[in-house]
């Protein structure tokens, strides 16, 4: 049994359905992407996983067991809306939060020091949150979510508002946690992060699951429809090839959208007959495009 199983879970607020029959499993050492536009039901799903609200239907299992107070201790949560006590010393509040999740004061203190050192911010041990920059506040928030060595971590928009250096630092840390066997439920609007981190994803749209599965397989389902040609010479007659939908002149050469993958070979032959190519690529769609297409289709 996988560490986190969400089995056909639904939630209604009055007559409004917030989540409709969502179903997924997250394995140990896996980062699972939960995607969706604003108001799609991500937060409600996460709150149900956290046991803050109870599902109307379906069940959530943690290591095969239903939710209980004990399960809380193996959960770690990084909320989308960051928040700590602004006027309390970092050591005090992080240790407090770790203690609430069943850690001894001593262990919590040791872990906190270890994490602060890892993030190169050891000097903030005795500082207050309000004295820190936003990026460093987020690091502390992240530490608060993982300090008690949780088995399951829920990261809601983990990298928002961070500079690229800190994004890389946290991304590296998340990968390390994954490699040490932690189960991670990951939600974000940044598709490139999902492509880099997640093995499986669920895309929610207006409370419903619209796309689900292994990220690589999902991508395969979508035709590779974008061709990149790198050249400095002007090419003629690209529009005339059967199956070409659109041709864009770009700085690096041409970008073409095609109907069938076979068309790509025809384009290559056509282009090579006219000029020297520095680059030819048949690209699978980015997750960004897949997301917009899945969510957009239903909008229409």
């Amino acid at each position: 049994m996988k560490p986190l199983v969400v089995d056909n879970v639904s939630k209604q607020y009055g007559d409004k359905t917030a989540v409709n029959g969502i179903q997924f499993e997250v394995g140990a050492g896996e980062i699972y992407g939960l995607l969706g536009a604003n108001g799609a039901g991500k937060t409600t799903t996460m709150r149900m996983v956290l046991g803050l609200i109870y599902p109307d239907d379906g069940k959530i299992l943690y290591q095969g067991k239903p939710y209980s107070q004990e399960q809380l201790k193996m959960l770690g949560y990084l909320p989308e809306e960051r928040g700590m006590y602004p006027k309390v010393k970092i050591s005090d509040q992080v240790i407090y939060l770790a203690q609430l999740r069943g850690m001894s004061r001593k262990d919590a203190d040791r872990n906190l020091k270890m994490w602060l050192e890892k993030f190169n911010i050891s000097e903030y041990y005795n500082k207050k949150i309000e004295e820190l920059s936003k990026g460093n506040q987020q690091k502390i928030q992240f530490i608060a979510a993982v300090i008690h060595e949780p088995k399951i971590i829920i990261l809601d928009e983990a990298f928002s508002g961070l500079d690229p250096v800190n994004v890389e630092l946290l991304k590296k840390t998340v990968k390390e946690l994954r490699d040490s066997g932690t189960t991670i439920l990951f939600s974000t609007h940044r598709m490139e992060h999902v492509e880099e981190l997640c093995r499986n994803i669920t895309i929610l749209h207006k409370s419903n699951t619209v796309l689900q599965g292994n990220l690589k397989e999902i991508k395969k389902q979508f035709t590779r429809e974008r061709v990149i040609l790198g050249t400095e010479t002007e090419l003629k007659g690209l529009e005339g090839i059967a199956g070409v939908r659109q041709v864009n002149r770009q700085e690096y050469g041409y970008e073409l959208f095609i109907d069938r993958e076979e068309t790509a070979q025809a384009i290559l032959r056509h282009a090579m007959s006219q000029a020297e190519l520095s680059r030819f690529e048949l690209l699978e769609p980015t997750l960004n495009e897949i997301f917009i297409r899945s969510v957009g289709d239903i909008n229409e």
Partner: protein
Amino acid sequence: MNNFLTVIGFTIRNKMRTKSFLITTAIIAIILSIGVNLPYIISQFNKDEPANIGFIETNAPEVTGPLKAYYEGMENPGLKLISYPDTGSGEANEEALRQAIISGDIKGYILFESNEAVGFPKVFYKSEGLMDMGTSGTLSAALQTIKTDAVLQEAGLTEAQELLLRSPIEIETTQISLTDAAVGEGKSADQQGLAMGFVYAMMILLFMGIFVTSQLIATEITAEKSSRVMEILVTSVSPLTQMFGKIFGMFLIGIMQIGVYVAVFVINVTLPHNVEMLEGLNINFADIDPSLYVFAVIFYLTGYFLYSTLFAAVGSIVSRTEDLAQALMPITFLSMGGFYIGIFGMTSPTATFVEITSFIPFFAPFAMFLRIGLTDPAFWEIALSLGLLVACILLFGWLSAKIYRTGVLMYGKRPSFKELRKAMKAYKV
């Protein structure tokens, strides 16, 4: 249980570290010390020379003579009369006396003007002070005595008659118990005064302990919500543990604070000079019925837990500290109402409105305590009032826990009762 203690510990540690809390406690302790020592301090100043009052030698000597003798005969005279020579003209006399005030020799002066109709001269007291009641009061009393003496001397009464005329009327008021069988027992006037003072002090302590601390709880909960640390807290520890941990932690803080005040008070009162002072005023703290202390503690506990759970519930539904005061308005009025019933009821503790409100749980901690302290309610009345109070605590504790559980997750505008109920249903709490 472990988490409960952790929450309590965190609450206490944080509060103890805030400067404002420490400063407030220190300031109140200092004010309290000054207050306790004030009678002694004032008495120290009063041992100074009596105030000098000037008069003109030739102006109504039949009055000023005995008046001077009257004050000189006293052991601790408040006034001393100083004579000034007559310069001949009234205006020059007054000018001389004015100069004497300016030079600081005298505080004021008296002038007399014959009043044929009454037979006793009309008196003018002139000083720089506005409405110098203290001086004119003692002057009036002294002159009254002198007048009576003068009349009595002429009347030729016997000594016994004179004594009878002079002796003041004595009324001894005793508060009796209507429920106890014993006749003739009760609280003497001194004891009543003491009980009144004690009840008054307790009312203020109750109000502070209950209202101020509850308000702090609500503020802290809203602050946790607005700083969004609440989201992490509710996923770490059950909201009930969190709420009652906070209430209990603040309770201990409140007790500690009151403990400091009581200690400061007791230490000050037991200082030798204050012991003397209290004996002189006939105040003996052992005279207070020990059960009154017990009831003070009981009503503090019940009042605190009733209001703190309510304040916590309101704090949990407000998302921003700016909106808190407004949301707290209704229960603020309730607690203020209780306090004012207590204070105003003090002069008429047997009034119907005090009796009725002593059974309404929101007011009972004040009204019932007032009745127990100043009158003698039947045992069943106390039991009923306390029973209702405890039932109310359980009811509101349960309700507040539900509201809290729901409220902490609701952000945005303050929810209406309907929205709250809907959310409760949706969250299955």
